[in-house]
């Protein structure tokens, strides 16, 4: 069994993994990072989105062995500095950007990736940036509002992660 070394949310883990183990199952079942849910079997829904080496990926479509040597950030790693919720998390709360909440971790991680690339996205750019993430409750309106509100907040605070 291959041995991998992965930095997840700032902590380093070393584990023997079966090659077929998906990154999302490694995060959830081996590391207990259940903040990252599995929503589908087809790489469509984006609920399991995490950052791998700084870029958003659907962790159901990456093998754990492929994360060997790379940093992973999950939704659980967003407020590591102890200052409370990340501006994106606060904005989702404030703007009622969720109902059942299942898609929210993926929405937030995809939004984080979008804002890293484009700190001041238009409504259309937010929609395009989140096109790989499905929400069956909200109709997306409040999600788009939340992301733009967080963007304003983050530009003010210069929060980058």
């Amino acid at each position, binding site marked *: 069994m*291959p041995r991998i070394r992965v930095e997840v949310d700032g902590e380093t883990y070393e584990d023997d993994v*079966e*090659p*077929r183990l*998906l990154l999302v*199952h490694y995060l959830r079942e081996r590391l207990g990072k259940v903040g990252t849910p599995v929503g589908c*079997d*087809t*790489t*469509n829904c*984006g609920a399991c*989105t995490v950052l*791998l080496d700084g*870029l*958003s*990926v*659907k962790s*159901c*479509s*990456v*093998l754990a*062995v*492929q994360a060997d040597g790379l940093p992973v950030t999950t939704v659980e790693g967003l407020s590591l500095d102890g200052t409370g919720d990340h501006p994106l998390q606060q904005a989702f709360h404030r703007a009622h950007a969720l109902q059942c909440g299942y898609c929210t971790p993926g929405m937030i991680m*995809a939004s984080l*990736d*979008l804002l890293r690339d484009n700190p001041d996205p238009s409504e259309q750019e937010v*929609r*395009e*940036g989140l*096109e*790989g*993430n499905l929400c069956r409750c909200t109709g997306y309106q409040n999600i788009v509002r939340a992301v733009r509100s967080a963007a304003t907040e983050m530009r003010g605070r210069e929060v980058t992660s």
Partner: protein
Amino acid sequence: MIPPTFEYLRPESLDEAVRMLPDAGEDAKVLAGGQSLMPLLRLRLAYPDALVDLDRVAELREIRDDGDAIVIGATATHHQVVRDPLVREHAPLVAAATATVADPAVRHRGTFGGSLAHADPAGDLPAVALALDVVMLARSASGGDREIPAREFFVDWMTTALEPDELLTGVRIRKPGPGWGFHYEKFHRTAQAWAIVGVACAVRRVQGAVEDVRIGLTNMGSVPLRASAVEERLGGGTLSDSALREASEHAAEGTEPPADLHGSADYRRHLARVLTRRALTAATTR
């Protein structure tokens, strides 16, 4: 679901990858970005004995200038391709079509060569490869280097001319001279969905006359196709609105489009005609 078991091989160089492939057996699969292969494994639609993961083969990721052409390394990601200055300047059709592939997270992992070698007729890039008449660069331990023109590459449904021990290493795309216009027109139901039909076109005009035209069709058969009947009608003529409209009416000739819950075969033939007209119009009015 959990993927079936497989042996996992991770070469660190192209040489090592090419040597590993024959030993991995006939039922081995090459893993590039995995954005098509991983769902297939999870749905248990594929049971490869081994995966040869190209993730660590850095030399396959390069996009380079090759004189009168550019070469896109097989595992350059879609994300990389869309932003690459060489691609944007010399292969704008590739950049434009790649930007429509799936969604940002998938584009971060998915690769240019992987999409071509996977040869899904609903994939966007095979039709682009046909429209640009690109050359596939392949290598094997037994046969060395081989060049395969795009029109000979797509053999059957999800089947390419690559031998089991052969690896797609890159794609050579000629730099267009003056007078070329390009466009990819895609029709899909939702943002990240596969194309119901897509049309890639490359048109060269000299003093108003069509000097050269190539049109690739996405999802109009078991392989990506050229709209030859349209090309023949346009070649040499002037591009009036009516000529373009008349020629586009022949876009579905010789195709055998699939029927599924997104549309009947007839609907796809209709789309091919409409999208071809739109693509040609866009390619010639910039």
